[in-house]
């Protein structure tokens, strides 16, 4: 059993929900990212999504766009990010998902990427612009090494597509709770409830919900229906606002703990 499945099973047995945090690797710098990860690991975060910055993040809102630009200036290449994951594995077994766009992986080489990701200790990959129709090129290599290929489901995804996506996906399904790019509007708990139950009728995979969750209260409302929630832009923004300050890590810790408490 991989780290992701293991963690989700474990939480389910305890009746708890997964708290998933997204951060852009290299913002404000790669060394700081390592410290932030260390802090999140000790503050109740169950799964990490490490964002691999891309020059043209068409599925992201202004907060993550800006973080990606800053990270690229700090040399947050795919290769350096894989090294970073290796360093995390020296102190933590927290499940790690790399989250990004296809081009940096394609240029790196799909086979080489899968091999190095496995060596570094990556558990899953989520490639925003790689729908299952185009996923074979990468997935045959990640599948061979037991890296979960995590897929997105949108409010616009039909039942038939959910069936196809689930058949190709591993780890968990990531339900995009708004029709929009990351961090640009608030999910409606009632819509999320209906949609998550629609997805769960079709697949047995765990369903986590993200895009636009900004407060512990929202997280708590949504966590009732889902197997986990993802906090992304709101956390990236917190880092942006506290970058360079002495208490950045302390703020990150208390931010994560508030979410952990809220979702139970």
């Amino acid at each position: 059993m991989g780290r992701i499945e293991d963690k989700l099973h474990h939480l389910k047995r305890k009746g708890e929900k997964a708290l998933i945090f997204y951060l852009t690797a290299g913002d404000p710098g790669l060394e700081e990212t390592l410290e932030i990860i260390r802090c999140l690991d000790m503050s109740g975060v169950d799964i990490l999504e490490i964002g691999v910055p891309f020059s043209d993040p068409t599925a992201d809102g202004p907060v993550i766009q800006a973080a990606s630009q800053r990270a690229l200036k700090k040399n947050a290449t795919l290769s350096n990010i894989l090294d970073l994951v290796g360093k995390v594995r020296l102190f933590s077994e927290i499940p790690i998902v790399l989250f990004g766009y296809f081009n940096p992986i394609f240029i790196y080489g799909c086979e080489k990427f899968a091999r190095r990701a496995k060596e570094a200790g990556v558990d899953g990959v989520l490639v925003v612009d790689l729908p299952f129709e185009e996923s074979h090129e990468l997935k045959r290599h990640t599948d061979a090494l037991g890296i979960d290929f995590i897929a997105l489901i949108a409010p616009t995804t039909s039942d038939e597509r959910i069936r196809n996506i689930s058949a190709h996906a591993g780890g968990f399904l990531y339900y995009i709770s708004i029709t929009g790019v990351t961090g640009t509007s608030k999910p409606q708990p009632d819509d999320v409830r209906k949609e998550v139950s629609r997805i769960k009728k079709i697949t047995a995979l765990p369903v986590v919900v993200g895009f636009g969750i900004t407060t512990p209260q929202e997280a708590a409302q949504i966590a009732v229906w889902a197997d986990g929630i993802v906090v992304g832009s709101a956390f990236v923004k917190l880092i942006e606002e506290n970058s360079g300050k002495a208490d950045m890590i302390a703020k990150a810790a208390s931010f994560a703990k508030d979410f952990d408490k809220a979702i139970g």
Partner: protein
Amino acid sequence: MKKSLPDNQGHFGDFGGRYAAETLMPALIELEAAYNGVKKDKAFQKDFQYYLKQYAGRETPLYFAARLTEKLGGAKIYLKREDLSHTGSHKINNTLGQALLAQRMGKKKVIAETGAGQHGVATATAAALFGMECHVFMGEEDIVRQAPNVFRMKILGTEVIPVSSGTATLKDAMNEAMRQWVARVRDTFYVIGTTAGPHPYPMMVRNFQSIIGKETKKQILKAEGRLPDVIIACIGGGSNAMGIFYPFVHDVMVKMIGVEAAGKGISTGLHASSISSGKIGVLHGNKTYLLQDENGQVHDAYSIAAGLDYPGVGPEHSYFHASGRAEYVNVTDEEAIEAFLTLSRFEGIIPAMESAHAVAYTMKLAPKLDKNQIIIINLSGRGDKDAQVITEIMERSR
């Protein structure tokens, strides 16, 4: 009969495809189904032909450029006069097609990206014609250098939304249009202006633009009794080039040349020659040649011609390059400016800065060919929008 491309997932050999976020996938599949539905629908095609003829002014002439031919002293040069189309470029062919399709699909709002503003104006025009709400995304840099087109869009009732990310040019405008489409996908139709983007756009835009090549074929057969030796067109994303090339794809004796922008020179890194000096990658929903660094981060393109200032290229051009069916060359800003002035002064036709790139390569090639050979240039647009920039350059160099 050769197998037609793309395949049913939008692949042209190793290129193209549909690399899009899940929120957009259902919309792209819906669009593909709707487009496939109208392709053979007689009523739709009749409507489309009606607007092309009575509204856009087709067919456009194929004009023998006698003085330019004489000056260059080689092959006979013909100009396919897309500059005479309504709104001043070939872009209207595609926007009329897509707007009619949007109407069929019951979408009342359209969005578009634009570089030079020609596609923006053509979309704003079609939106006004069919009573649709229209938003156009345009880089701040382009808003400054293509100001006349911004005025036109506003007059037509379109909202022009400035994009300040990246280099504030076409790539960034397209990023922002895709983000907005994600947010409004249920009621909004995204009118892409070139033969790029996720499937079905490269195929659909090609088919709407192929009217250019179909007319050209008929016209040159009438004028010369034979097909041309060479067809030359400028390439940004590649819609005017694909429009004129495509109907000649199986006429293997016709050489097709796409002219990319070399900007300040390939060696300076300030250019937009994706095929000549890019590597294969994935951007804006398709796999194609891209200007990018060794880590897969996309470079900003540069060209004096805003409409060529794009780091990618339509996937079918990448396929033509890989298969050798078309040749891709490049010319610098300086060469394009010289061609701009030459065509203006020898033929009384002010070309768009983009189209001037095709003229510039013709000026290199024509003298090397025999007098009985024929070159056709796709003169994709007119240059009124560039008058200010060129005037400033002329005054500086005085």
